[in-house]
């Protein structure tokens, strides 16, 4: 089956039904392994054990941004090709992205208090991440405001494309401004500044979180397709009754 065949909602449902249990199983196994690796990792020579918060904070930040990137691609699918599956993916992804962005901010605050002496500072990285959360909430609100899914999808797509400007701001905020938040330390020119015994568990945890994200996204997209079928059936019922 070609990848484009998945663009058909009925085929997508069949593939999702088959894939979700396997993905869920893989997520549990990967999560258990990554958690064991994170707990067994040594303490940082400066941060001590608080480095363990990084195993949650970094994957959450990565997924919050990845999710908006995916929604940006879906927005192009909605505006350029007007494909219903692009609408479905965009709508299903928003609450998941919002949840991971919230988790990024909460774990960041809990790391900041013992390391910086404060839960929050209005520096560029933290503020741009908060803006991302507000953008997610705006998208969710917009989906709920417009009753017709096709009209809502177009409005959300425009907001998503505008909001995508925040992604490079988040990424490069630590380079463009003087921030309390540390600079890039995983993917950077000259290699990572993190020692492998701490870096490898971080990669494992990021992989497990990404698997969780894919599983939740497929399940939420399946729910959204079913919701649209319910709406169609209700419209058919109303039409038949009138």
């Amino acid at each position: 089956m070609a990848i484009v065949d998945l663009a058909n909602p009925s085929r997508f449902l069949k593939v999702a039904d088959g894939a979700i249990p396997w993905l869920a199983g893989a997520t549990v196994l990967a999560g258990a392994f990554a958690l064991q690796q994170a707990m067994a990792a040594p303490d940082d020579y400066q941060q001590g054990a608080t480095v363990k918060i990084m195993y949650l904070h970094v994957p959450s930040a990565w997924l919050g941004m990845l999710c908006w990137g995916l929604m940006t691609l879906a927005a192009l699918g909605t505006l350029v090709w007007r494909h219903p599956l692009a609408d479905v993916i965009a709508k299903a992804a928003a609450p998941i992205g919002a949840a991971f962005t919230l988790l990024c901010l909460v774990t960041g605050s809990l790391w900041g208090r013992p390391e910086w002496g404060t839960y929050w500072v209005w520096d560029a990285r933290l503020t741009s991440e908060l803006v991302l959360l507000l953008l997610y909430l705006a998208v969710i609100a917009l989906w709920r405001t417009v009753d017709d899914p096709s009209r809502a999808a177009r409005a959300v797509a425009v907001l998503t494309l505008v909001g995508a400007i925040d992604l490079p701001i988040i990424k490069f905020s630590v380079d463009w401004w003087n921030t309390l938040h540390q600079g890039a330390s995983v993917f950077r020119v000259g290699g990572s500044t993190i020692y492998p015994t701490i870096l490898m568990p971080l990669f494992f945890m990021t992989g497990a979180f990404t698997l969780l994200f894919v599983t939740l996204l497929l399940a939420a997209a399946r729910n959204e397709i079913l919701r649209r079928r319910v709406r169609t059936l209700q419209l058919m019922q109303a039409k038949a009754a009138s």
Partner: protein
Amino acid sequence: MAATAHIDFIAAAYAAAVIVIAALVVWVIADYRAQGQKIAELEKRGVTRRSAGERPPRQPGQADRAKEQA
């Protein structure tokens, strides 16, 4: 020792992760069940969707309607 000094922050971070992930999982499962129940109730009342195989060829201007039926 650093581990005992900041254990409450570490525990709070992992607790927050458990709460957020559990909320997402519960939301997805509850929503799936709710939509399944609604479809079953509508089909019980005789409201059914045409299958893709029985659908007639799409006419010009039917794009939005097809979108609704997705």
